[in-house]
């Protein structure tokens, strides 16, 4: 089996205006930098992006916002981005805010063939509006539905031609569950290695969920909040 494509351009081939994308990452940590750049080049418009955050001005999904390629964002937290704020307040950008755990589970459910599930998160808040409420063990829960995407854009640390993936540090975050929920899951890796080099016991996401994989390049890995302590 060989799912290797040459680069990000080949990775996102077939991606069209109006499609729904999942984009891995938490803040700027573990975002698919190469795929995002290729999307800017492709100039695909009216995209719905499911991603925990929306990048910052000039980096991450902020690059797509700058080019007005995103019609709707589905996220849990969207601070730190002036262009996002401008487009949201002017009504150019539709925004659906979802509790972070529900967002993760809705992606996981999408990939796992579970159409919906009950969760206590958001009960009694505006998140629950219009959603079915059921009591389990005397506690109220709301019905949340699975999320799916035409393309899932994923960043992993290591991968092989079968699409087996290993993530590094907290760059893992939403990447595994989104990899499961894409009709076409495109993965960029820092190290594309021979299958023998990956221990099957250590695979985080089996290749069955992955359609395309490529060796990424020129990672900037920008840090959003550089916090350090002094050596004493």
């Amino acid at each position, binding site marked *: 089996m060989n799912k290797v494509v040459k680069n990000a351009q080949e990775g996102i081939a077939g991606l069209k205006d109006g499609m729904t994308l999942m984009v891995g990452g938490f*803040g700027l940590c573990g975002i698919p930098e190469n795929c995002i750049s290729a999307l800017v080049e492709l100039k695909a418009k009216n995209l719905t992006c499911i991603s925990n955050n929306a990048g910052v001005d000039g980096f991450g999904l902020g690059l797509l916002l700058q080019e007005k390629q995103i019609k709707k964002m589905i996220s849990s937290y969207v601070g730190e981005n002036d262009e996002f704020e401008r487009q949201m307040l002017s009504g150019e950008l539709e925004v659906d805010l979802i509790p972070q755990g529900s967002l993760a589970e809705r992606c996981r459910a999408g990939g796992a063939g579970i159409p919906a599930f009950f969760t206590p998160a958001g009960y009694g808040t505006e998140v629950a509006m219009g959603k079915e409420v059921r009591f389990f063990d005397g506690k109220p829960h709301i019905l949340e539905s699975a999320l799916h995407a035409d393309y899932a854009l994923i960043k992993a640390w290591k991968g092989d031609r079968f699409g087996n993936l290993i993530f590094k540090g907290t760059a893992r975050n939403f990447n595994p569950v989104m990899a499961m929920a894409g009709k076409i899951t495109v993965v960029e890796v820092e190290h594309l290695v021979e299958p023998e080099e990956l221990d099957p016991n250590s695979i985080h996401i089996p290749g069955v969920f992955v359609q395309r994989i490529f060796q990424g390049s020129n990672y900037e890995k920008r840090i959003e*909040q550089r916090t350090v302590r002094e050596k004493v």
Partner: protein
Amino acid sequence: MLDRNGIAQRIAQELQNGWYVNLGIGIPTLVANYIPQGISVEFQSENGLLGMGPFPYDGEEDADLINAGKQTVTMLPGGSIFDSAMSFAMIRGKHVQLTVLGAMEVSDQGDIANWKIPGKMVKGMGGAMDLVASADNIIVAMSHTNRKGQSKLLRQCTLPLTGVKCVKKIVTNMAVLDVTPQGFKLLERAPGVSVEDIKNATEGRLIVEGDIPEMKF
């Protein structure tokens, strides 16, 4: 009256040996600086790590290792990394014993509002709704009044809610209070703060029984 560090220090006294703890952004983060001697806890960050350590030394920061506030952090021995779905499985599944978070308003039934102010840019709830809906033990860390001097401990929240009937304890710059079915029960006063001061700064139902001791540090 306590400052931010004082509030964090008082909350740290609530930590119990062996607990897994999620600290929110702001004052809650400071709790990690005051873990009492002999108490061993592990900090969970909802972006996917357990066993979070202090900030890295200058030059040793790793872009692939951040906390939920997007700050560079380190890992301690025994730590582990996982994806977002598993992170919230441990939160929803009540495997994390304590959540400490900030709030804009708390009602005397334990409702909390901390994510949205109508008319202002809404940044989102992040993991707050999942955390408050599930944790058995939620401590709110906040100032007793807002910048206009109005009480943040109310009969009813006026802002959009983050969760209902979930807050168990509140530590403010003025007091420690439990949330009971009858309202806020005053447990301790901050140094130099009188019961009268606390009554004046609390809009919700306040229960004062017997002598209220001053906080000990």
